[in-house]
């Protein structure tokens, strides 16, 4: 399936100041066997005085931009065309949850995909005692790791209420979990915390979801803005799988990826520091349109 993705993020600043600097993680990459980026263009208005591209530890493209003069309004546009390959069918060769630790321990090295990066608490995601307890309650003896991932995802979907207005970017996962509501970012952080709590390495994926569902299927939550879901490591055999707790499904051909990391802070699409004070307003619009090959 091919998709044309258009994203616009716009900001208005109440009291602009000089030397605004932003770090963007918006340019997608090819992912072997999953997605090919056929074209991508990231533009800003006004045009920044400096623009530099780097690749971060996890392999995400990082665009750092600076405006030397004060900027009171800013728009960021991404337009990209993806080829998303369907996920191959696979058998569940993942070890029982109780045996996963041995799989992890057998691996050495600090490569970005090593599960060890995703076991401990990161800034925005646990383990956290209450979420760990919740996850333990979901797992039954003998479950494979893959089954456990799906079971925890489904349980969260059943337990949590999607509410686009209830939380903010800065809301801690524990708070969203205590109130049992949130947006995709909260669902994702909570599921990551649950998985890590029971010893399953888990991280954060940012990306897009097709705007209109295939004929006859319901429109998915999270299609109006950038989306987030979970990546979990389910053993040496299967490696990483992706699950979307906001929609209770594995992230399949309807999903394209922009960045991945341990939690939101590793992949934040726009990280910005503006000198001076005053509030800011932002808006985001996304279109993910399938095109005929």
């Amino acid at each position, binding site marked *: 399936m091919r998709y044309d993705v258009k994203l616009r993020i716009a900001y208005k600043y109440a009291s602009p100041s000089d030397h605004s*600097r932003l770090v963007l993680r918006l340019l997608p990459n090819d992912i072997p066997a999953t997605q090919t980026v056929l074209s991508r263009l990231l533009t800003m208005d006004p045009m920044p005085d*400096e623009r530099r591209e780097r690749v971060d530890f996890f392999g995400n493209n990082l665009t*750092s931009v600076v405006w*030397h003069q004060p900027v009171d309004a800013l728009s960021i546009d991404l337009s990209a065309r993806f080829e998303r390959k369907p996920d191959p069918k696979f058998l569940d060769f993942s070890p029982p949850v109780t045996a996963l630790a041995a799989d992890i321990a057998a691996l*050495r090295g*600090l490569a970005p995909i090593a599960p060890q990066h995703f*076991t401990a608490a990161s800034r925005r995601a646990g383990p956290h005692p209450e979420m760990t307890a919740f996850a333990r309650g979901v797992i039954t003896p003998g479950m494979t790791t893959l089954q456990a991932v799906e079971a925890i995802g489904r349980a969260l979907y059943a337990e949590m209420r999607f509410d686009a207005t209830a939380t903010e970017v800065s809301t801690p996962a524990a708070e969203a979990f205590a109130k049992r509501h949130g947006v995709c970012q909260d669902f994702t952080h909570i599921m990551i915390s649950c998985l890590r709590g029971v010893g399953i390495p888990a991280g954060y994926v940012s990306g897009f979801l097709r705007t209109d569902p295939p004929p006859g299927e319901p429109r998915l939550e999270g299609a109006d803005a950038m989306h987030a879901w979970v990546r979990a490591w389910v053993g040496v055999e299967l490696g990483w799988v992706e699950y979307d707790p906001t929609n209770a499904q594995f992230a399949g051909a309807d999903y394209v990826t922009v960045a991945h990391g341990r939690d939101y*802070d590793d992949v934040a699409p726009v*990280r910005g520091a503006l000198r001076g004070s005053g509030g800011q307003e932002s808006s985001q619009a996304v279109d993910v349109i399938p095109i005929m090959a």
Partner: protein
Amino acid sequence: MEKTAGGPMDLPYLEGYAPQSGVSDELFDARGNMRPAWQGFIDGFTGLTRPQVAARFERGNQYLRDAGVYFRQYSNEPLMEREWPLSHVPVILHDDEWNDICAALAQRADLLEAVMADLYGPGKLVADGHLPVDLVASNPAWMRSMVGVEPAGGHYLHFLAFEIGRSPDGSWFVLGDRTQAPSGAGFALENRMATTRMFRESFSGQQIHRLAGFFGDFLNALDTLANRHEGAPRRSAILTPGPANDAYFEHTYIARYLGLLLLEGEDLIVENGQAMVRTIEGPEPLGALWRRIDAQFADPLEFDPDSHIGTPGLMEAVATGNLALANAFGSGVLETRALMAFLPKINRLLNGEALAMPNIATWWCGSPSEREYVRANAEKLVIGPALSVDLPFEWGANTIVGGDLRDMARGSLDDLLATEGATLVGQEAVNLSTTPAWVGSAEEGQLRPCPMTVRVFAARTANGWSFLKGGYARIGPEGDATGLAMQRGGWVGDVWIRSDGPVPQPSLTPTDDEPYRRIRSGTLPSRAADNLFWLGRYLERCEDLIRLVRAYHLRLATTDGTDDPLLKTIRDYLAPFGVDPSDPMPAPLLDRLSAAQTCASKVRDRFSNDGWLALKDLDKTMRAMRETALPGDDAARAMSVLLRKLTGFAGLVHENMYRFAGWRFLSLGRAIERADGLVAMLATFTDSNAAAGCFDIAVEVADSVMTHQRRYRINTNRDTVVDLLALDADNPRAVLFQVNEMKRLVEGLPGVMPSGRPGPLLRAILPLRTRLAVADPISITPEVFAELRGELANISEIISASYLR
């Protein structure tokens, strides 16, 4: 130890000095003989009478108080400071022994650099199984942003500290490595200043090594690092987390001592990959930073996004190779406690030899055999978080000390080790050596053996590691030589390295045979200028209010009731400032002074200690008066005391402060605030509807009663008051005088005459000056007062926009 008649333990102050069995003592060797390095000092010290001892100690304390050395603890009270806990008696080591220590630690420094280069480079130590992957991948101090980034200048580590202790067998061992932003070197300098004043005769033989050589070496290394590329010279500076940090005093002290700029995150911008310091003359490129801020707070775009003390983009300056850091971001990972369990083997692996100085025995409970050892020997160990970067004796709440096991079910430790083993380390519960410290009052105290550790400092130079020939000792309470004692606090002490013959006498002051080099003061960071400007404004505002409150209480003492129209005018005038003058010490006064102190605290490196102490004294006086002052005469007298103290501060600034750019901003702040205060007061107190007596109030508040009598020889009227307080060029309490002052101050600022023509600032000041110079009192209508205030606000705004942002 056996006591023999006439032995050292019969000397004054050493009676009953009995080191515990099973620990080493710095003063006496295992056979009870005094170590030779101490002989000279002890001979002198034990020859002092008690009053002499008291006088010596007081001399040291006085120095520390005068120098403003204090210790700040993180607490809920923002600026809580306590007296510097100096142990007056130094720790003395022979330089043969010291040289061995330094040689061993140089090996360790090289090892740490090699481990660092691997952790942020090829990662072979982990890949080959010499370090557990969890210790790195789960470690918050391991900074992924640094992986693959070559440090500018080729090295990650440039300034290190090692906490060392002496074992019962007399050998030394490392308790911890300080690699992130080691503190203490500045405190070592301060301690030395104090001991030099107390024991001057000990230094006269020139057998105690000086500290200056080391700092000279480090400064040169930093300058070389900053200027490793061809081109215009680039600065090096110290980057501090700011006044809220417990080591901030040290940062200000060492910045002054080394002549380095002291910068906070907001002083820097990164432009085109180059870190620059914002100065009143525009951005200037930086080549190297001595980083005293923890990496995670240094760049909110790269690390902790919630940090407000960092510089956005600093990591980019590092990644592009334009900025060298001492030490590199991510060096905190080397402080990880569990690393101690692996360093000895890694050294053998990388260098083919054993560590010349062992570190504290450490077992990582993530591996089965070590876990079993810790389980079986828990009574002799301290068990704590594996990834902690605290020193072994800085235990947190989740530390289990051997003795605690009595209160803990045996099984729960086993459970903990079995389930959380990878997050735990066991460390040997070490015994430290003891050193003589004065315990008790000067009248009755004695030298007692107290446990100690020494912090050793190393700097990378072109000729290898250079070590401070001295150190920073921490001394624990008497009676317990285990590391446990250090947990309960104690003192800090100077460390003397004594040679058998004369030692070199290096100094940071250039010698005759070196080319003359003026210390690099120059550039004033915009933030420092901003703080000085507002310090001036707040102090003047404070003075203004005090004078008005005094005028109120003087009237109150001579009138019957508070409904007197004059009192009401003053009350109404002060109301918008939040000041109720019927309160003998209105809280807003304290607020203004606190604001002034906050500004001063942010520029302590550019601010004399006398000035700082004067502000603190003022604050103390105000707070004391708030408890006691009564309305009327008493409050008026209290205000007079405060005014005298404020004048004392102004005098310090006027008489003693070097006329560098910072002084100009401080004085500009005062001038603008005073001019504005005068205009505001005149507008109210010369109003045609003002109550009788208001002219006198204006003249009195402006401290011009005598002048008015001499100049006009008539009673006050509107014209004389306006003439004297607005239009007089010779009255320091007149608006015109202050505008002239502004012009004079501004003319010394950079860029004030671009292309030889007056810039915006002068274009705002000159017309105002002319207007006041040619005006007569009648033309200064109430509307004019409003215009004047607007013009003064405009001048302030132009100063801010041109220099302070």
